[in-house]
């Protein structure tokens, strides 16, 4: 049962809400309250656009418990347009081969069933390809 944890993270998971540093304008995700760029306090919320590109990726065939039903699935390091990198699954790939540099955008999807057998379904961010010309 990790309900409290999901509740704590819901803003990040549903909305890709991070922080912006009031001192140096550095954008921060995941939020960490201290700016990694200038070391000052940075708690101001910032809504990321959800636009980015694939920095690296791979496909997982042997998934952790709770994710088996999704396997195989592709995970990526996505470089957001505003600067930070985020780890996320790619989705809606169809037949399209994934490539480094491919433009992607954030969507909300089902992540997994919670392991407590109570059938809690968790939602969170994934990224899908952006068609050429649509950005």
């Amino acid at each position, binding site marked *: 049962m990790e309900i409290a944890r999901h509740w704590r993270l819901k803003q990040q998971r549903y909305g890709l809400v991070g922080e912006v540093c009031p001192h140096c304008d550095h954008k921060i995700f995941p939020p960490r309250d201290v700016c990694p760029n200038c070391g000052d306090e940075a708690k101001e919320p910032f809504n990321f656009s959800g636009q980015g590109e694939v920095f690296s990726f*791979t496909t997982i065939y042997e*998934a*952790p418990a*709770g994710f088996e039903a999704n396997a195989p699935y592709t*995970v990526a*390091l996505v470089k957001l347009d505003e600067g930070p990198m985020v780890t996320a699954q790619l989705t809606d790939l169809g037949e399209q081969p994934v490539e480094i540099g491919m433009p992607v955008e954030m969507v909300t999807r089902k*992540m997994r069933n919670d392991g407590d057998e109570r059938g809690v379904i968790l939602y969170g961010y994934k990224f899908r390809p952006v068609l050429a010309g649509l950005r």
Partner: protein
Amino acid sequence: MEEILITGVGQIPAGEHWDSSLREMGAKAVRLALQNAGNPEPQALFVGNMLSMNISNQAHLATLIADRADLVGIEAATVEAGGASGGAAIRQAVLAVKSGLVDCAIALGVEKFTDKAGGELESALATNMDGDFEAMQGLTTTSQAAMLMQRYLMQYKAERSAFAGFALNAHKNGAGNPNAMFQKAIKADTYLKAEMVSEPLNMFDIAPFVDGAAAIVLTRSSLYKGSAQPVKVSASALSTDTLSLHDRVDVLEFRSVARCAQKAFDQAGLRPGQINLFEYDDQFGIFAALALEATGFCERGQAWKMALEDEIGVGGRLPCATFGGNKARGFAGGATGIYQAVEAVLQLRGDAKANQVPGATHAMIQGIGGPGSTCVSHILSKMES
């Protein structure tokens, strides 16, 4: 000058110990190390372990093993730093003995992986990454390494086959190690045809998960009365980086390794060129490559060439994984760092038989937790006689 010495080593074979429990494996390695050290009276036991709370539902492990190893009463604590746990236990033992508050300490590494497999093991391993922003996405430790390798191949324009050298060297050296899981050399062709696990990682780019236990005994030179030639700890350092890859400015630079290695070289007063053998952490071939680069043994983007050109063989410029490393000996989690120490001591004692590195005087051992999130390095040196 007062030195920190390793006076005894012990190990059980790395492999699947279906019939042996965590505590039995640990206690056995402790007893072997104490015997090897001439049965001193240890005052402290530091246990490196990654996952026993998850895999075996067993915490409070150091006290359990002290109890089971007939050392009831001594100081005992478990040290965890992901895959660097074994090296971190050595680090704690070094700090303890150096402080003067402990005269003789044991660093034990022990791990029982094979009681879990498949998705359950992946879940256990995923506790080592950021639970909120990595594990939550269904990420696995293998896929972290695969993403690093994917980027490496692209950024440095290396061929997929570039990583064969790490596996070939490991298996060749494993053949001379009776404690290794795999004791047979493999061919380049076998590597190239191996099953893909998480592209571009194939099964030879990944070390197998094994059970294992290894221990070393440490003391100060002024207290050592034995006649055997001990090995001294010339440097001991531990550094960290961000836990997650996505928080790094440059993911292909293992900064924890660079920081940690620099500290170690400074302490020992040595340059990379003076190291005679390097026990790197090859849980994945790409970790070995990035570690070679960050430690300063080659330029960035060049490590795969070192491996391909056999510079890392026992007779090469910088022998690596001289007993097979994680790839052939087997990856035993928190035990890995101590296996490395045991192997380096055998080399420095001149007891490495078929795998002996000629003239081995300085050995560097290095453990990595997560994708370079934690790094621990020790330099072990032959005592001048």
